[in-house]
């Protein structure tokens, strides 16, 4: 199919693009796509004490926060399938979320003030996730208490799956929900991340 001679390969290697050219063009594409209403899902990754976090946002608001153990590539594929394949790395739309997360991890922010897009969850799960921010910073509740909080005292297991499938961990504080015996239960980011968040909040709240 390609009859390029070895000598021509060397010739065509002269046509390599210089470093930085594609970064510059990428930024230009981000701006143009946003301006033309094509940037359905913007994302970036930020460093945090619990590892790299993927942040993704629609035009409505922050739609996904994902831990490294969730595999960011898989998360992006899922977003492309469930929301829109027009997914582009575009840190600008995530500036505010990144700033508030920085403040949270520095212990200087106790609640998030961000527009959220809860369209990745529905029904009872979304209802639970809407209520989770009512558990105050530095406090915890059991799955049973949350079930009572949302008016379905018998739905303890369903509360567990609502927490496990929370698309916005850290920002929507499912880490503040524990088993009734005080043990951690589960966490998408791993139990080490869950206990790190609880320790951070306990220490910052004690100051």
């Amino acid at each position, binding site marked *: *199919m*390609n009859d*390029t001679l*070895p*000598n*021509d*390969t*060397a*010739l*065509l*290697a*002269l*046509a*390599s*693009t*210089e470093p930085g*050219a*594609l970064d*510059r*063009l*990428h930024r*230009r*594409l981000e701006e*143009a*796509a946003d301006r*033309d209403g*094509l940037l359905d*899902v913007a*994302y970036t990754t930020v460093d945090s004490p619990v590892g790299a976090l993927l942040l993704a946002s629609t035009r409505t608001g922050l739609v996904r926060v994902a831990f490294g153990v969730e595999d960011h590539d898989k998360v*992006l*594929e899922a*977003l*492309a*399938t*469930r929301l*829109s*394949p*027009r*997914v*582009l*790395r575009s840190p600008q739309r995530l500036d505010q979320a990144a700033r508030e997360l920085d403040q949270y991890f520095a212990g200087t922010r106790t609640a998030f003030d961000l527009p959220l897009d809860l369209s990745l969850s529905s029904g009872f799960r979304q209802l639970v996730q809407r209520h989770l921010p009512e558990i105050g910073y530095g406090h915890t509740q059991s799955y049973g208490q949350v079930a009572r909080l949302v008016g379905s005292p018998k739905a303890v297991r369903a509360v567990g799956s609502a927490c496990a499938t929370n698309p916005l961990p850290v920002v929507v504080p499912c880490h503040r929900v524990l088993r009734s015996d005080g043990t951690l239960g589960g966490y998408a980011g791993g139990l080490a991340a869950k206990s790190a968040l609880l320790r951070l909040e306990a220490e910052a709240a004690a100051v």
Partner: protein
Amino acid sequence: MREMKRPFEQVVTDHGDTVLRVCRAVVGFQDADDAWSETFLAAMRAYPDLPPDANVEAWLVTIAHRKSIDGVRGRQRRPVPTGELPERPSAIGVPGSADHDLDLWDAVRALPGKQRQAVAYHHFAGLPYKDVAELLGGTAEAARRAASDGIKALRTAFPDSSARGATP
């Protein structure tokens, strides 16, 4: 079950470099950024409707080909009836770096339109000659000849390319 489609970011990562080289070859170094941007913006617009089994790179090159014709038409301020790119004035100064590459882009730009496009689409983008022929019109054999003549001219302009290319 919804069909799987890769995030568009992956398309940019995988093909951005090739498309930039194609744009530089076809419209010249200076106008390549505009052509690249228009190509990927149009691609992002159409991406949800692209069949999942499509050859993404060939699709992008087709868009780049159309955009390069539009761009040339815009600059010429008159209609061009075919896909043939008119000759442009010889190279003027180019801002920025990458001096070692500019000679090559100048040489590519000096090629007749069809040779330049055939080299870009076959050698830079890897399209088979029958696909190149679909873009340029004419037969696959004519596309092969145009690419071959183009490479021959470039080889004459860069007799020492194997030595230079060996140490990029």
